């Protein structure tokens, strides 16, 4: 590797440094060079040795944790397609169909996002931060399968520019980048985002009459939202709720494994839990947020059980948390360290209300079946306030101590 580094250092670098013919592209060169070789920077002040970890490693660990969701999501996209038209297909066929849908999304997300990052880094003359490595993977995973690519491109651009760069870049943003892109699509293109896009080609197949009975292309939460406002013993509601019984399409088992339609990466609780294990094992994800988020969700689900005003409220808390984006949001969205609460106590409060509101929004508001997105974004906004009070308590403790001394 020494030879390669020498070549880069001696032959390529002069072109990009001040005065070189490609000096405009210094940022790009710098990013790629530091990507390949951790620079031989030595400590100048303070501690002479530094921990092995850096932001690149941290971000890579998160991507590693996302891989199970990505793989399962890709397979499930194919699986749902074949299931909707009632065809049998093998693993590779399903992966093939899925990959054709998912890969372009990943490419568009990274292409647009990193492109913007490079431009901003060039303008600001700072090195490129690693933050988007994770956001760029999260964005496709929270998209419906059939979302048009141009919409993803616009949403990504919006999220990176308005969500992040205007605040100063990685580490400065208030809202979770990936969820900002999703929220943007949700509000800018409500028609397209609530349509039949959760299963590949479901709309076309419906028109052509190819759909299997019972497949409407709606998600579990979409179905459940339909029960709200209708008598629990009406035939329609009973028909819907039957699908949530054991053996039904949205049974606990299917929901846990992820064999249901939904955003690409979110359906499988199992895959999310593997990701959570990686994040907790490496110490990168906050167990406080994950645990309190789960408790918050279960608490709200249990409270709804007690109220039991409609069929949706009657769904068991455990079943609630394995449906929709709850687990994905819990593991990957709520734990984003930049937008979450930063203090240990704050994280517990932040997580609890995140989970609590997720379930509350999805049940109360049929127009927003995906409550997790709204809940996490709302808690992102509230996080600084939570931290403020936690820190204020610390300050008050100090003041009180001081007053005792002087008294």
């Amino acid at each position, binding site marked *: 590797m020494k030879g390669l*580094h020498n070549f880069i250092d001696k032959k390529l670098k002069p072109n990009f440094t001040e005065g070189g013919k490609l000096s405009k592209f210094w940022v790009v060169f710098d990013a790629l060079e530091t990507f390949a070789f951790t620079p031989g920077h030595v400590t100048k002040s303070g501690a002479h040795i530094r*921990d092995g970890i850096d932001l690149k490693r941290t971000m890579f660990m998160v991507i590693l944790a996302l891989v199970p969701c990505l793989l399962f999501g890709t397979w499930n996209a194919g699986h749902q397609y074949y299931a909707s038209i009632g065809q049998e297909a093998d693993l590779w066929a399903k992966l093939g169909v899925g990959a054709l849908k998912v890969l372009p999304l990943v490419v568009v997300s990274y292409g647009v996002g990193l492109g913007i990052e490079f431009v901003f880094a060039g303008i600001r003359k700072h090195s490129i931060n690693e933050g988007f490595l994770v956001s760029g993977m999260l964005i496709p995973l929270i998209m419906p399968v059939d979302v048009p690519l141009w919409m993803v491109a616009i949403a990504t651009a919006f999220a990176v520019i308005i969500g992040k760069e205007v605040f100063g870049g990685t580490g400065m943003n208030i809202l979770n980048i990936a969820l900002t892109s999703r929220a943007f699509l949700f509000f800018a293109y409500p028609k397209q985002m609530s349509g039949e896009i959760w299963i590949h080609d479901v709309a076309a197949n419906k028109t052509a009459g190819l759909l299997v009975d019972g497949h409407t292309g709606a998600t579990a939460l979409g179905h459940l939202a339909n029960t709200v406002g209708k008598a629990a013993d009406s035939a329609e509601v009973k028909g819907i709720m039957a699908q949530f019984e054991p053996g039904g399409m949205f049974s606990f088992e299917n929901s846990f494994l992820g064999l249901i339609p939904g955003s690409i990466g979110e359906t499988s609780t199992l895959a999310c839990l593997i990701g959570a294990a990686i994040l907790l094992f490496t110490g990168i994800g906050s167990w406080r947020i994950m645990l309190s988020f789960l408790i918050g969700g279960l608490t709200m689900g249990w409270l709804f059980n007690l109220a039991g005003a409609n069929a949706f409220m009657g769904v068991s808390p455990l079943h609630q948390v394995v449906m929709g984006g709850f687990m994905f949001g819990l593991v990957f969205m709520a734990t984003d*360290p930049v937008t979450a609460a930063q203090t240990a106590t704050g994280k517990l409060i932040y997580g609890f209300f995140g989970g609590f509101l997720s379930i509350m929004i999805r049940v109360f508001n049929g127009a927003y079946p995906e409550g997790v997105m709204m809940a996490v974004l709302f808690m992102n906004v509230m996080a600084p306030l939570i931290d403020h009070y936690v820190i204020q308590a*610390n300050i008050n403790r100090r003041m009180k101590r001081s007053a005792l001394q002087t008294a």
Partner: protein
Amino acid sequence: MANSIKIRKGTDIRLAGEAEKTLETLKRARVFAVRPPDFHGVIPRMMVKEGDRVLAGDALFHDKYNEAIKFSSPVSGEVSEVVRGEKRRILAVLIKADAANEYRSFSHQNAASTKKEELIKILLEAGVWPFLRQRPYAVVADPTLSPKAIFVSGFDSSPLAPDPDFVLNGEIENFQEGINALNILAAGKPVHLSYKKGSSALTGIQKATLHEVSGPHPAGNVGVQIHHIDPINKGEVVWYVDPQDVANIGRFLKTGKVDFTRVVALTGSEVKAPKYYRTTVGAQLSDMLSGQLSEGNVRVINGNVLTGETSSADGYLGYFSHQVTCIPEGTEPQFLLTTGWLGLGFDKYSISRSFPTWLMPKSKKFKLNTNSNGEERAFVVTGQYEEVFPFDIYPVQLLKSIIVNDLDAMEKLGIYEVAPEDFALCEYVCTSKIDAQRIIREGLDTARIEFS
């Protein structure tokens, strides 16, 4: 009966190169240096010229803002050079040592029978005073203030730190005399002395409130102990002294001679045979290091790897150093797949568990170099500093208040209680490679100018 303090947060970095418990007494170095930068915040005014002859204990310079605080020569000899840096800032006063040491003699008597004012005067005059430092601000103690307590952390918990029982061996009488003197200076206020759980040298010391401290680094940091024993509030001052310097104060009071002998641990993976040396404050390091350094690019650190200062092989032992550490420089770029951020990283030591090294047995020691292992970034990861910061203080928020220069917030968030060394582990673990110690020092400087 000692109070017991258990520190839970923190970490012991498993560095290779611990000093073997053998002591070599070095012959007296030929050149000594007293370096004003060792005393943060002191602006030196020279009291001697190049070519002047001095005795051990003769003042070399004093503080511009407090003329009473004098800094004396540790040996007799000739002032050979005043080393100046940018803007003629004085970096070091070099003294070419005589063959035989001559001492300036000070009147001396039992510390216990001396009045506080008298004791302060003699310590100032002999240049022994600067061993006393104060918080807030972590600077040389101001003799005009009355501290609410004096703290002595009887041990150092930083990586490869010298063993307190070993270095104080034979010095306990001097140490007790030093504690007696601190009691006079405290004027009725408590003198707190901590020792590491399991160590025995200091358990018999009289006239001090004893605390038995256990836990990982930074348990030995005096700041941590102050915080757990009697935290500093606004307007309060505490003084603190290193244990070997307590013995130095005691020795001075017993003999009336300035004799800053010190046992120093030579440590680090790049030292061929790490062990202890008896030498003197300010002595040139070359005698200690000759033949001891491995080949290659080695960084010599005056102090420990977390808070020490980069020196050179012919540098001088710092005023507050009781350890010299030599580790390899890390100037080699690391290719991503082999040794970089995507590599498995069996050689990378990390507090996070993203490298497999945390699965290795606790006895495994690591040879770490000075590579920063990444570039500086904005704060992204949270909760990381708190794991190694045993204070009831929010470290990141305090750092941010300093970065934006918000004095009010700094005060509220606890700037008075901390010193750069307390943030050394935070700086070590930081994913974003932020220079926490430098920021804290800037904050302390700002606060000192504004509030005093």
